[in-house]
């Protein structure tokens, strides 16, 4: 049997609409199905699993659903969730425990690994399990490098790299079993105590944007971003930038694309005055079309671009804006 930790926002989401099940957790479920027919989805929450959420898990291959109900889980509590998984691991002795390679999935699994004193393979793109040992391929360096590793453990703990395992419908029985676990207070110490919603108008988020006009050191200054912002607006997109730009304080970090910034997947990524360091490319390699505007023909970004303009961005961008306005 494989256990799959299902992240959710059942307790906090606005009523109606989506089921509250984390879409990336469905990818972990998909990965589990490639390893075993018996796949148990584990949900730790403060109340019953809504029927729509149970149906979604069933439709994605959960042959069993275990719901741990605890009043302390009204909002996300990583260590308590891991403790619940640890108790279940002892009870059912699974071959593996999987979760999404998201901030939360990796966090819960790291707690679980620490509790069980087992290795944890994060951000896997491939998984095979055998008796007493498993083999994984996992992402390093924000996906710029892959590692093949053998995990010597009777239970494999792993998380799945986002979008490495496609979600396909796979109806399964998925009978729901609910239980009330014991959770020591110390495990509930760290949990979400408050949510701060953004004030004022929120523009298009980087990760959802269809068009990103991104600037690097070549833009030269905070003021230099004016034509980038104007072009982004004309195209219904948003501004992105490199780390050099955020460390100089020209733009906020929420706009940084890359390994330690945001990973983006727009239809169009216009890189202006960005050299294309691996750590930057780690964030924009899922862009459908890349246009690079750079004075240096040999800049690495020119190798990964679909279209290049070898020229000063400050000459090109105003001309593009003017042409678009006509």
């Amino acid at each position, binding site marked *: 049997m494989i256990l799959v930790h299902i992240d959710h926002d059942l307790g906090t989401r606005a009523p109606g609409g989506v089921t509250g099940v984390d879409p990336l957790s469905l990818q972990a479920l998909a990965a589990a199905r490639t390893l075993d027919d018996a796949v148990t989805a584990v949900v730790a929450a403060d109340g019953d699993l809504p029927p729509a959420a149970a149906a979604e898990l069933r439709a994605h291959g959960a042959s069993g659903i275990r719901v741990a109900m605890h009043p302390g889980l009204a909002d996300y509590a*990583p*260590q308590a969730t891991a403790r619940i998984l640890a108790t279940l691991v002892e009870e059912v002795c699974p071959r593996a425990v999987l979760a999404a390679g998201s*901030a939360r999935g*990796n966090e819960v699994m*790291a*707690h679980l*690994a*620490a509790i069980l*004193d087992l*290795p*944890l393979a*994060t951000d896997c793109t491939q998984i095979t399990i055998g008796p007493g040992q498993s083999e994984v*391929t996992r*992402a*390093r*360096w*924000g996906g*710029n*490098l*892959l*590692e*093949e590793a*053998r995990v*010597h453990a*009777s239970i494999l703990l792993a998380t799945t790299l986002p979008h490495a395992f496609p979600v396909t419908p796979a109806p399964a029985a998925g009978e729901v079993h609910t239980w009330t676990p014991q959770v020591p207070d110390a495990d509930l*110490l*760290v*949990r*979400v*105590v*408050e*949510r*701060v*919603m953004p004030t004022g108008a*929120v523009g298009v988020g980087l990760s959802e944007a269809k068009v990103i006009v991104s600037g690097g050191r070549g833009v030269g200054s905070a003021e230099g971003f004016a034509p980038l912002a104007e072009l982004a607006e004309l*195209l219904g997109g948003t501004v992105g930038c490199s*780390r050099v730009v*955020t460390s100089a304080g020209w733009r906020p*970090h*929420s706009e*940084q694309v890359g390994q*330690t910034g945001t990973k983006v997947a727009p*239809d169009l990524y216009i890189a202006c005055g960005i050299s*294309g*360091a*691996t750590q930057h490319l780690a964030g924009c*390699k899922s862009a459908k079309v890349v*246009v690079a505007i750079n004075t240096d023909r040999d800049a690495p970004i020119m*190798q*990964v*671009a*679909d*279209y290049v*303009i*070898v020229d000063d961005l400050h*000459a*090109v961008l105003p*001309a*593009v804006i003017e*042409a678009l306005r006509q």
Partner: protein
Amino acid sequence: MNICVCIKRVPLLGSAIVLTEDQRSIDTSRLGFTVSPHEECAVEAAVQLVEEHGGTITLLCLGPAAAVEQLREQLALGPDRAILLEAADEVEPQATAALMGAAIEADMAATGAPYDLILLGSESADTAGYQTGIRLAHRLGLPAITNVKGLAVADGQVTGERAVGSAREVYRAPLPAVVTTKDGLNVPRYPSVPGRIKARKKAIDIQQVPLPAGVPAGAPAGGMGPRMEKLRLIVPVSEAKGAQDLGTGDQAAARLVEVIRQIGVLA
């Protein structure tokens, strides 16, 4: 406040990754080294907290002897002293947390000054396991708040904020605690010349660490307890796109507008 900040020396990758012949490491012979932006932000946060509350900052690094270079760079920004746990090979997260935990306990016993806060990056730039901070917290019996882009200390409590889309989740824990930080928490300062000069005289305590039994780095498997064994590294091949040159100036601008129209992103 006594703060310990854990940092890791990593290569400053260029535009292409070259592996060593055995394909188990990155060929770093032509590369410089640095620490991850996540950890730069952890150091900056510690410096700001000590500016506000007073206290001392100790840097802790598990890595090769050459990591003294990264420790000096970070010492130039304000931390008081550093401890280097010297390990030649890559050490996996279980062992890293065990070694750092033991070093932290020994250091607190020796100085008589317990740490209020232990900061790490949310994940290392190179191996990216997302677990060392949490394992360290369990090892030390402390609460862990992770992935923070906002950090404050007041009344014996630490508050951490995590970004979720454009919203923020707030976490709170009593001190002492472990907190892992993310790039964007702050804008790290640049070192000043006096800072660099002072850093040269700051103490770096270099300790040779015996790898704990059960998890020797690079040792063959079998009877060693559960562990993850690196087999080889692979550089994913990205297909050369053969970019189309749109020319320069107004001509390029006109052609780019055509491309934009073709893609269909214009409303």
